[in-house]
């Protein structure tokens, strides 16, 4: 399952998508809206995505995981729209017969998701200001 959604993410969403009889280990990552960014109080966040490309890139990350660890059970979901403090913005689950690979692959999935999946976050601070978050250096690329 590779999904952009405007609905609330439930804890079981990605878990259910990766469960299987031979999966003894499931590593599940949840990104939660924090109450601050580098000490500045956050009021809420807004996420925007390019859904078809985002879901395609999520599926590509799963292919990378298949090539690196031989694992086939990967699920990713990212929410868009307005999210309040404490709400889940992203959930990733990887199931594996053994835990080491599940931890490595889930961490890899999150890193790649931040790098190549087109999703944007706007922070709205408690003082009323707002801005799109700063770039990941990986994205620096010249037009020329």
């Amino acid at each position, binding site marked *: 399952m590779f999904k952009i959604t405007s609905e609330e993410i439930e804890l079981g969403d990605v878990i259910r998508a990766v469960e299987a009889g031979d999966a003894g280990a499931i590593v599940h990552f949840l990104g939660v809206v924090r109450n601050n960014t580098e000490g500045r109080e956050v009021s809420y966040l807004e996420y925007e995505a*390019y859904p078809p490309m985002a879901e395609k890139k999520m599926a590509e990350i799963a292919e990378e995981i298949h090539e690196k660890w031989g694992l086939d059970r990967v699920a990713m979901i990212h929410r868009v729209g307005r999210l309040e403090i404490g709400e889940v913005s992203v959930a990733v689950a990887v199931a594996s017969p053994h835990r080491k690979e599940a931890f490595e692959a889930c961490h890899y999935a999150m890193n790649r998701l931040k790098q190549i999946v087109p999703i944007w976050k706007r922070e709205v601070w408690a003082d009323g200001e707002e801005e799109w978050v700063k770039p990941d250096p990986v994205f620096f690329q010249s037009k020329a």
Partner: protein
Amino acid sequence: MKVKVKYFAVLHEELDRDEEDMDLPEGATVRVILDRLEAEWPEIAEYYDVMQTSVNWEYATPDSELSDGDEVAFIPPVTGGQDV
């Protein structure tokens, strides 16, 4: 030929639209679109170093040649890798 162009995040905001259809000469590259946008909103040039381009949901470059019906997107920096 006609392509669909999509704008996200800061571009969506500054250009005040999230997508549009654009008529382009045959053989046009992504750069032709960027030049038009720069004529409308010169500050877009400040984003060139941190902005990605996609054609049909795949990362591309300003030199990528376009075909009729393509979907082009300009992808300003994605959520920072540091947080979360």
